[in-house]
C-alpha cells in the first residue's frame, strides 16, 4: 500500500485543485510499481490552506496554475520515486523513460509496462543487460509502434537502434548495473519508439530474493 499526504499554502479553487491533484498523481504515484499488486488502500490526500497570500488560482490555464502544477508534480514525483527506491528487497531504483509515442499517456503506458516486468526486474538484479526483455515488455504494452523505430539504451550504452540489436560492451553494461546496485542508485532505461511528441516515465526497482522472503513472512 502507498499512502500520501500533500500540503500547500497556495490559494486555489476546489475544482481546479482537484483536477491538478489527479494530473500530478497520474504523472507520479500512478507511474510507480514494485510488484504489480494494486492495494485496497492506496490514497493520496492533498490540502491547500491558502495562507500564503498568493493570488487565487481559479482556472487551470493561467501561468500561476502551471507553476503550481509543476510544483505539485515535482513533490509527488519525488515521493513516488522514493517509494520505488524503497521497494521490498530492492537494491536499486529503475527509471524508465519513453519518448516518440503519439501522446503522454501512451509513453507512460509503455514505460510502466517495462518497469513492471518481472523478467526485466530480475535481469537488473542479476546485473544482466537483457535488452530483449526490455523490448518484449515494451512490445506488450498494447501501444502500437513501428518495430523499426525501436531504440533502447541502458544508461549511456546503446543496446538497440532502428529495431536492430547492436554489438555493445556487455561487461561495461553489467558493471553499470552492478554499481547502481552497490550504491542503491538509479538504473536508467531509455526507450524511443518513434517520432511522436509523447514522453513519459515510470519507476520501479529490481526483483530480489528478499522480496519473496519478506512477503512469505509478512502474513495477511
Amino acid at each position, binding site marked *: *500500500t*502507498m*499512502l*500520501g*499526504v*500533500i*500540503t*500547500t*499554502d*497556495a490559494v*486555489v479553487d*476546489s475544482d481546479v*485543485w482537484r483536477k*491538478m491533484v*489527479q494530473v500530478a*498523481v497520474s504523472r507520479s*504515484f*500512478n507511474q*510507480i*510499481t*514494485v*510488484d504489480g*499488486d*494494486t*492495494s*485496497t*488502500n*492506496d*490514497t*493520496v*490526500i492533498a*490540502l*491547500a*490552506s*491558502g*495562507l*500564503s*497570500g*498568493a493570488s487565487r488560482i481559479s482556472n487551470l490555464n493561467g501561468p500561476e496554475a502551471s*507553476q*503550481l502544477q509543476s*510544483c505539485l508534480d*515535482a*513533490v509527488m514525483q*519525488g*515521493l*513516488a520515486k*522514493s*517509494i*520505488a*527506491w*524503497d*521497494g*521490498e528487497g530492492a537494491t536499486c531504483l529503475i527509471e524508465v523513460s519513453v519518448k516518440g509515442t503519439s501522446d503522454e499517456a501512451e509513453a507512460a503506458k509503455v514505460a510502466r509496462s517495462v518497469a*513492471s516486468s518481472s523478467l526485466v526486474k530480475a535481469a537488473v538484479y542479476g546485473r544482466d543487460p537483457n535488452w530483449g526483455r526490455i523490448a518484449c515488455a515494451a512490445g506488450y504494452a498494447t501501444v502500437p509502434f513501428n518495430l523499426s523505430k525501436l531504440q533502447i539504451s541502458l544508461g549511456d550504452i546503446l543496446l538497440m537502434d532502428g529495431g536492430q540489436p547492436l554489438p555493445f560492451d556487455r561487461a561495461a553494461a553489467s558493471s553499470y548495473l552492478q554499481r547502481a546496485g552497490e550504491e542503491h542508485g538509479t538504473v536508467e532505461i531509455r526507450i524511443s519508439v518513434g517520432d511522436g511528441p509523447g514522453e513519459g516515465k515510470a519507476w520501479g526497482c529490481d526483483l530480489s530474493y528478499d*522480496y519473496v522472503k*519478506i*512477503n512469505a513472512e*509478512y502474513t*495477511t
Partner: protein
Amino acid sequence: MSSVATDAVKDVLAANYIPAAPILIPEGPWQQISGGVTAAKGFKAAGIYGGLRAQGEKPDLALVSCDVDAISAGAFTTNVVAAAPVVYCKQALEKSKTARAVLINAGQANAATGDAGFQDVIECASSLAEMLQLRQKEILIESTGVIGHRIKKKALLEALPKLVGSLSSTIEGADSAAVAITTTDLVRKSVAIESKVGETCIRVGGMAKGSGMIHPNMA
C-alpha cells in the same frame, strides 16, 4: 519541565526511528526546503506510538491538521475491494470541498472488514472531530497494514489525546508523522519545496509511505 523535555525528546526520537529516504526532486523553478507536510503555512503534524503495530514500538499513529478550512482533494485506489477508509474519504470529499485533518494509522488496513470496519472508521473520525471541535466530514482517514484485520480501535481512541497534544508545525512533527505511517518501509519519505506563484512565495510539502503491494491505479 522534565515532562515537556521528555516529550520533545520523544518527538525527535520518533522522527529518527528510521532514516530519511533520498528524495530525487526533478529540476525546476523551486528549491527544496525541510519540513515535509508542515512546511506550508497553517499545517501541523504529529506521529506517536499508539500500540497499534503487531510488534515493536515504532510510531504507528499520525495526524496532519490545518488551522483553517483547507481546500481538499483526493485520489483513491480503483481496486474493487476498497478499504473502509477509502470509501469513507470518497464520501467525505463528495460532501465537503474542505477538510481540516487527516488521521492515519499503520498496522491494520481495515480492508475486507465489512460493515464493522466501516463503523470503526466513523467512530474514529467522530471521536477526533469532537476533540478538535470540528465536524466529522472535515476529518479524513488513511490506513495501512494487514488486510482483513479491523483497526485496534480501543488503543487508537485512547491515544488520540496524546496525538492531538503532540501536534506541532516543526520539522520533527512532519518527520515523526512520516515515520508513523510506514509499514515495511526502510526509510521515511518526506519532502518540501518553495517556489513562486505569481509574485508570491508558496510552499508544497508532502509525505508518503510504501514498499510492498505497490502498483497504484488511483482516480
